[in-house]
């Protein structure tokens, strides 16, 4: 059985401080009225009572990252020739992300199937992914917008994590999920946790029991394809959508990006930055044609990708982790659960003749 260790709440910062000696450590904290993941700072309070406003997506998939630095210069022998020197910039070092929730961390497994597949590997993603460990907090309460149990997960799902931390009286019970996780449990601040195991199991069970019955989404991939060409359906469900990127950028499973060259004078960088399918420019073609000209087309893609196209390509796995941020942070209250259920329930009107 994997070792379990107990960490007193009062020792949390000291422990993270120890881990920060050799790793970049990220932990959730208040910035203004939002809780975001930021580099660990012993001077600032960590906030882990509830899920963060934004997930730790950026720790492995930054909002923007340099891929290549480049510099133009003139050939002194032939001034009409412009030379370009380019240098790849690969992420360095190891990182530990503390305080993500099971949904947040499981989100990265959706990235893995795309960025670290047998056919292709994204070296930038892989460099961070391989060098980042996750100490994940099991949830001891749920929110109205939580639906991890709809998408084959749970408030204590360890998928993608290295250590699962369960809140128990006075602290956290830390369970190693991977070998890498086990190697992080050597600090003298940690004590034997075997006696807390039952309490942790109870916390996990109580939260799981508090969730209502999840609907069956098995038909979602097929039903979403059936309504693909039904523009009226998508116009209705997207009517209130503002077509902004809040849902996408707060989504632990949205992995689309843009690549731009940002040049100043003779120097510049090729960067990769978050992009989102709710933006009109996302599918704008050089010809001026846009295959997704309206928000109805765009929201269809967002829902379809997660609940139909991705599962069809990846053994039925739904590319949504059920964290609910897209619902609670949507300025217009668009609810992805409602849209998926509407598509599943949709019956085309039968016309006689």
């Amino acid at each position, binding site marked *: 059985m994997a070792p379990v260790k107990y960490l007193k709440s009062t020792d949390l910062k000291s422990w993270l401080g120890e881990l920060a000696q050799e790793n970049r450590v990220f932990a959730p904290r208040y*910035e*203004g*009225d*939002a809780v*975001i993941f930021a580099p660990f700072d012993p001077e600032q309070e960590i906030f882990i*009572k*509830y*899920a963060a*406003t*934004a997930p730790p997506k950026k720790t492995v998939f*930054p*909002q*923007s990252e340099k891929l290549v630095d480049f510099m133009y210069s003139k050939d002194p022998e032939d001034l009409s020739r412009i030379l370009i020197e380019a240098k790849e910039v690969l992420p360095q070092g190891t990182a530990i992300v503390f305080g993500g929730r099971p949904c947040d961390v499981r989100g990265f497994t959706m990235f893995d199937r795309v960025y670290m597949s047998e056919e292709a590997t994204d070296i930038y993603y892989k460099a961070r992914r391989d060098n980042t460990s996750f100490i994940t907090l099991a949830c001891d*309460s*749920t*929110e*109205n*917008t*939580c639906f991890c149990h709809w998408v084959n997960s749970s408030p204590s799902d360890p998928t993608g994590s290295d250590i699962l931390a369960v809140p128990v009286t006075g602290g956290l019970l830390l369970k190693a999920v991977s070998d890498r996780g086990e190697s992080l449990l050597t600090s003298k601040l940690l004590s034997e946790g075997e006696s807390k195991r039952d309490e942790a199991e109870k916390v996990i069970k109580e939260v799981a029991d508090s969730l209502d019955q999840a609907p069956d989404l098995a038909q979602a991939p097929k039903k979403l394809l059936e309504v693909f060409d039904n523009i009226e359906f998508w116009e*209705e469900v997207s*009517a*209130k959508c*503002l*077509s*902004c*990127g*809040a849902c*996408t*950028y*707060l989504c632990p499973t949205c992995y689309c990006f*843009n690549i*731009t060259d*940002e040049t100043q004078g003779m120097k510049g*960088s090729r*960067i990769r*930055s*978050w992009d*989102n399918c709710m*933006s*009109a*420019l996302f599918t704008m073609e050089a010809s001026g044609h846009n295959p997704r000209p309206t928000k109805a087309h765009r929201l269809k893609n967002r829902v379809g990708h997660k609940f139909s196209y991705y599962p069809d390509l990846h053994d039925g796995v739904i590319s949504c982790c059920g964290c609910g*941020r897209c*619902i*609670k*942070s949507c*300025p*217009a*209250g*668009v*609810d992805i659960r409602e849209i998926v259920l509407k598509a599943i329930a949709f019956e085309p009107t039968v016309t006689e003749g």
Partner: protein
Amino acid sequence: MKFQKELKDSIRKALPELDVVIGWCGSFDPLHATPHFIRREEDIDKLEIGPLSVHNLATYLPGLRSKKVGIVVKGCDSRSVIELLQEKLIDRENVTIFGFPCTGVVDQAKIKKALGHVGNVQSCDISDKSVVVVVGDQAHSLKLSEMLADKCHSCRYPDAIISDYFVGDKIGDAVPAKADYEALETFEKLSIPERFGYWLKELDRCIRCYACRNACPLCVCRDHCAAESRDPHWLSQENNVRDKLMFQVIHAYHLAGRCTECGECQRACPVDIPVLMLKQQMNKEIRDIFKYEAGVDPEATPPLLSFKMEEENITEKDW
């Protein structure tokens, strides 16, 4: 709300001539409402108006210009409709306006701050004086006046300024509880480096989702925004605070004298950045220089959309 039935009756009467009527209905939890698009008779029953009707539905009007649209407006929302009419971004004959006397809407961010957490709200009852929210089996009673949006405290237009149907009794001229720019004036007392430092800190967490822009009823460049344009290349796509601030400055400049301070930019921000203040600063200057208030007179022209050889309060010759 007592005039909810009257409103539903008016909508029922007008709906056959309209493609859609936009109002509000219940949302994912009892603390939130969501925009409600009424297309069929049976959709009318779900309509709910009250202190949770926070969204400014005028945002949807330019996108529905080719349709016959009905819209339910609070007093402040009606100012956005007026501004859109002034700028000929919507057509009066295609818009049917339903007004009601608004007694204020809540600011969910304040409720969240007061309670610490609103993830599992079970019920929310709002009376004239209080907001009673049950979260995780515990009831919390908050003073409604403290939970109202800031704009409601300085509101002078509780009744829709323009409407085709008005339900309920008009409140009439309201005496604002607070001066227009109280918070801004406190902020202005800080030194420039302090103010700049404030914005760098606040905007650092911006995720560049542009919810602020898309929720804005007067951000009408829509798919041709400087934020993403590569040519001209005003902003880089890097995650640096300089570009984030630059966008906010562009946004504020574009809205100077047009912004009705509905606050949708700030309400929409998923990471709670107080971006409305930048627009208030511009509007305060406009008010002082041009004696102009946006969105109150459909016949007026916003000052920066017009040109005068001699401005009354800009004395260039004396410079």
